C-alpha cells in the first residue's frame, strides 16, 4: 500500500465567479499529524470538503487512501473520520447516544460499540456524564465528544477542521494533548486545519500554508521556519550611526537593517555571519553590550508567507 494517504493534483474548486481553491498539489504521508494552515477564507474547509468527496472538484483530482474522491466518495468517507467546522452533535441526545448513533452508522458490533464508547469517553474524562444531553455541556466538553465521535470507528485518516477554535487555553491544551496521544497510540493520520500557529508547531509533523486558494509552502515546521523567515541578529549597545549602519549593510548576506534606541537588528538573506558582523561593529567603533541571534519563529515564517507573497505571483515553495 502507498505511504501517501492524501494526494491532490492541481485540485481546484470555483463557486460561480470565486475561486475557493486554485490548483492544489499536496501529498500527505501516512501516520502523521498534518497541519493545513491559512487565514480565513483561504480555502481550508473547501479542501476538506473536496477530499471527503462532499464537493466535486472544478479541476484537478485527489486521491484519499488510494481512492479517487470524485468517483469513490462513499468509500473515502467510509474509511475516514471528520470533525468539521461545527461539532455536529445532536444536542437533544445524550453524549452516549451521540456516539451510539455514529457507532451504528459505522456498523460497529454492539459489544465493540459499547467498549469503544466507554474507552473514548473515559479517555476524555466524560464517562461519568455520558447520560447528560450534549446541549448542556461546555464547548470544550462538546469538542472532546466530537473528537471522540470522529475517532470512534478507528479510521485510518481523520479530518479535523479547527478542533480547538473557541476553546479556552486550558481546554485547547488538553484537547491537543489528547489528539497527540490518540494519534500516536492508534497510528491515525490527522489532517488538521487551524489558525493557531503554536498549536500547529506543537502538534504537526508537517504543515502546508494556503492563502486565497493557493498553496504557499509545505514541509516540516522546523524547515519552514528556516525558509522564508530568514534569521536575524539583534545587537544592543551604542554608536550605531549612519556610517556604521552603512558598513554593516555592506556585509555579504545582509538583507536589511533596523536601527533604533541602542538596538540594531540585522536581517540576513540566509545564514547569519555573526563573526563578520562583530568585526564590522568593532571596526566601526560601536560599543557592543549584547549580540543575540534571533531564532526564527513559525509565526514569523507564516506571517511573512501570508503577508508578503504577492497574490498574483504566489508560488508554492516545497521544502
Amino acid at each position, binding site marked *: 500500500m502507498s505511504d501517501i494517504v492524501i494526494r491532490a493534483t492541481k485540485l481546484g474548486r470555483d*463557486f460561480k465567479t470565486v475561486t475557493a481553491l486554485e490548483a492544489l498539489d499536496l501529498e500527505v504521508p501516512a501516520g502523521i499529524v498534518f497541519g493545513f494552515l491559512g487565514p480565513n477564507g483561504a480555502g481550508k474547509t473547501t479542501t476538506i470538503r473536496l477530499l471527503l468527496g462532499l464537493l466535486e472538484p472544478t479541476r484537478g483530482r485527489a486521491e484519499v487512501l488510494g481512492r479517487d474522491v470524485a468517483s469513490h466518495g*462513499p468509500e473515502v468517507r467510509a474509511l475516514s473520520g471528520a470533525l468539521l467546522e461545527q461539532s455536529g452533535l445532536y444536542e437533544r441526545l445524550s453524549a452516549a*447516544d451521540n456516539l451510539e*448513533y455514529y457507532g451504528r452508522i459505522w456498523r460497529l458490533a454492539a459489544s465493540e460499540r459499547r467498549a469503544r464508547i466507554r474507552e473514548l469517553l473515559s479517555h476524555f474524562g466524560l464517562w461519568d456524564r455520558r447520560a447528560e444531553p450534549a446541549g448542556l455541556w461546555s464547548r470544550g466538553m462538546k469538542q472532546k465528544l466530537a473528537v471522540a465521535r470522529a475517532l470512534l470507528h478507528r479510521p485510518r485518516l481523520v479530518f479535523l477542521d479547527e478542533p480547538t477554535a473557541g476553546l479556552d487555553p486550558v481546554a485547547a491544551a488538553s484537547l491537543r494533548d489528547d489528539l497527540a496521544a490518540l494519534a500516536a497510540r492508534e497510528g491515525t493520520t490527522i489532517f488538521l486545519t487551524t489558525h493557531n500557529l503554536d498549536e500547529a508547531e506543537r502538534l504537526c509533523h508537517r504543515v502546508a500554508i494556503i492563502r486565497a486558494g493557493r498553496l504557499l509552502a509545505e514541509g516540516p515546521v522546523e524547515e519552514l521556519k528556516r525558509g522564508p523567515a530568514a534569521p536575524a541578529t539583534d545587537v544592543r549597545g551604542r554608536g550605531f550611526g549612519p556610517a556604521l549602519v552603512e558598513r554593516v549593510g555592506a556585509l555579504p548576506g545582509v538583507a536589511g537593517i533596523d536601527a533604533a534606541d541602542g538596538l540594531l537588528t540585522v536581517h540576513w538573506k540566509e545564514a547569519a555571519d555573526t563573526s563578520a558582523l562583530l568585526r564590522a561593529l568593532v571596526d566601526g567603533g560601536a560599543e557592543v553590550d549584547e549580540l543575540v541571534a534571533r531564532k526564527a519563529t513559525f509565526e514569523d515564517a507564516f506571517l511573512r508567507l501570508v503577508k508578503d507573497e504577492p497574490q498574483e505571483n504566489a508560488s508554492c515553495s516545497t521544502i
Partner: protein
Amino acid sequence: MFHDLRTVIWKEIKEILGQRGRFKGGRMGILIFLVVFGVVLPLQNGPEWVRSPLVMIYWAWVPFLLASGVVADSFAGERERHTLETLLASRLPDRAILAGKIGAAIVYAWGLTLACVMAGAVAINIVHGKGRLLFYAAPVAAGIFGLTFLVALLASGLGVLVSLRAATVRQAQQAFSVAFLLMFIPLLALPMLPGAVKAKLLAAVSGLNAVTVTLAVVLLLAIAAAVILIIADARFRRNRLILD
C-alpha cells in the same frame, strides 16, 4: 441498506421522543395526543365510532397532523443545528439518509395513529361493550390501515422534500403548509365550477359506493406519494446540501 435505514430511524425517533416543551413530539406530548385522540374523542362519539365508515375520514387526518409536527425538522433542523454536514460526511448512503428521515416520520405518525385507533376501540369496548366486542368492520379497518399509511407516507415525503432545501425549520413548516394546500387546489376549486358541471359531478359521485370512493382515494394518494418520493430522491444531492 436496511441496517442504515434502521439506524437513521432509531436516531430520529430518539430525538422526537426527547423533545421538550412542545406539544408535538416528546413523551408527554405523545401521551396527551393518545388520550385526546384515542380516548376522549371516541368516547364522545359513542359506539357509532366503530360502526360508521365515515370514521376513516377522521383517522386519515391524524397521521398528517402528526407528521407535520416533526417532518419539517428532518433536514432543516439538522441544517439549523449544524449537524447536517457531519452526517453527510459519514459513510451513510444518500438513500439511507433520505429514506430514514421519511421512515422515521412514518413510524411516528402512522404508529401513533394506529395506537390511537386501537385505544379508541378499547375505550369504546370498556364503556359501551357490555360483554360484546365492538370493532370496526373489516373493510373499514382495512381502509383505516391503508389510508392512514398513505397519508403518513405522503405527508412525510412532502415534509422531507420541502425540508431538504429550507434554511430553517420555520421556513420548512411554512413551505410544507403551502405545498399541502396546493395539493388541495382541485377541491378548493370545486365551488367555482359552473352549476351544470357541479350537478353532473355530484350525480357521478352519488352513484359511487363507499368502497369505490375509498379505492379511488387510495390510488390517488399512492400516486401522489410515489411522485413526491421520486422528486425527493432526485433532489437529494450531497454536494448541493453542503452548499445550501
